[in-house]
């Protein structure tokens, strides 16, 4: 099969366009590992952030990357995104890649649909944007200014902006970290549904062990710039945090991250105090 090698000047990245399955439906199966990093290192001055790291991500695989702060998670993601050049080693990533960051990073001066098609040279951009927004359940907000969107809505627009590019590699940099708990659960379901439909390879950078175990096929633990652990999660989705397998993996990961846990017993719900009824009284009423 024909493989086009492309040097991206300045990034130290060799990008590969595999003649893309989306263009030729009769083409042979896409390459098994669109992302290949070999002995990848990244230094900022004397500080080694990524230390001869090896990483493979297969086509359509959902990989979560865990690590303490300062472990190099974001640096690795930025290298994969092509935002930072690497110091040494080799890195192969697909040309079609997109990212969602912790902040939505929408252009405040562009309406939602224009943010979705930002930089795309396509026919009928508005139609495409509407379809992508419908996928994240926001087609009714296509004309909204980003400043009027809630945190979850803005993040869904950012997701639509990433998916409209049909990426082979989707990079998620703690995209749910700034959302409230309920919105986060909805976003987990949404990202899984979209991943099933579009089948990009996904790298999710997170500090939330539960999130990683809930979503990923494989959880990697990064420490001092090296991948120290690679755990496959075989439980069928949807996964429940109450299942013993889940608890076992979580305990294992927490230990790897240096968080000591007792036996993986479920944490009891905090007891909510019963509301105390206080009769209305003018003496506690002030203007």
């Amino acid at each position, binding site marked *: 099969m024909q493989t086009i090698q492309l040097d991206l000047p300045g990034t130290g990245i060799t990008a590969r366009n595999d003649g893309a399955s989306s263009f030729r439906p009769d083409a042979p199966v896409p390459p098994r590992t669109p992302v290949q990093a070999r002995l990848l290192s990244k230094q900022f001055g004397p500080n080694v952030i990524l230390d001869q790291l090896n990483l493979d991500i297969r086509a359509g695989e959902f990989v979560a990357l865990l690590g303490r702060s300062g472990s190099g998670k974001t640096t690795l993601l930025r290298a994969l*995104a092509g935002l930072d050049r690497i110091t040494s080693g080799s890195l192969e990533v697909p040309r079609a890649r997109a990212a969602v960051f912790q902040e939505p990073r929408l*252009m405040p001066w562009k309406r939602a649909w224009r943010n979705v098609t930002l930089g795309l040279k396509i026919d009928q951009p508005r139609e495409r944007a509407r379809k992508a927004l419908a996928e994240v359940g926001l087609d009714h907000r296509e004309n909204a200014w980003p*400043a009027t969107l809630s945190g979850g809505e803005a993040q869904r627009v950012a997701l639509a902006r990433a998916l409209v590019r049909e990426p082979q590699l989707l990079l998620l940099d703690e995209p749910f970290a700034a959302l409230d708990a309920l919105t986060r659960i909805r976003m987990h379901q949404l990202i899984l549904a979209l991943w099933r439909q579009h089948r990009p390879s996904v790298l999710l950078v997170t500090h939330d062990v539960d999130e990683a175990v809930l979503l990923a096929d494989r959880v990697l633990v990064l420490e001092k710039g090296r991948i120290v652990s690679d755990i496959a999660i075989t439980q069928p989705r949807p996964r429940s945090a109450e299942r013993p397998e889940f608890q076992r993996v979580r305990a294992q990961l927490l230990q790897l991250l240096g968080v000591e846990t007792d036996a993986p017993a479920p944490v009891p719900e905090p007891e909510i105090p019963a509301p105390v009824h206080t009769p209305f009284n003018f003496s506690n009423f002030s203007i």
Partner: protein
Amino acid sequence: MSVSTPAYGGATAPVSSSVSALDTAPAKTKPSVLLSVLRRAASPLVLMALWEVASRTGLLPERVLAAPSQIFVTLGELIASGEMGGNVWVSLHRVLTGLSVSLTLGTALALIAGLSRQGEVAVDSTMQMARTLPFLGLVPLFILWFGIGEFTKIALIAFATTFPMYLTLYSGIRGIDSKLVEAARLFGLSYPQLIVHVILPGALPSFLVGLRYSLGVSWLSLVAVEQINATAGLGYLINNARDFMRTDVIVVCLLVYSLLGLATDLLVRAIEHYALAWRPTFIKD
């Protein structure tokens, strides 16, 4: 204020009084708009009336200051004769020519300085030094260089108004969230696209502040440069009026200056309202 009354008592009087105070508070604000306008207009109106009385009784001679009524009559005459229109047009033309030069120059220099380190090194220090020159002090030098014709007038207006545009656009470009630029790069925007879709719209709010400031400065510099051998324009009218001790014409011209300043300010506000519709302060839905 806190209402402290016995808890369950029949203390109806204080309670009802506090409730009625609450009820009337919002009702008071509604008709007060007209009232506050009148209140604010009252003191200038009283001042005008005193001025008029002083003029009529001869307390304020006409060679010092003409009466308000006389000023309005003169304004009507100047408009009717077409003298005002023609001279305003000449002045407006000077300002617009000067501003178009400074807009081009200020934007170009700000882009050069804002978009690259080399550009900043090459442009910014010079601009920061030139900015501190008092442009009125340059008038004699410009007259020596360019004579006393239109060129000097327009060059001085352009010089004075370049700096606000340059400074605000430059700082606007430097103030853009680097995360947005990064996202735009990741989503495949070329460098020209980045400038059009990210950098210029992002710097626009701060640039419009500079534009408003420039417009203000442009009218100020117009007054100054039109004192130099003008044969037409508002400054010419004022100079002529001075020679004939027509204080009414001078005041009319000053009024027109301020009205022009006000009009251009409203224009920029309208532009802001349209171009910055995305800002939370303007969003109304």
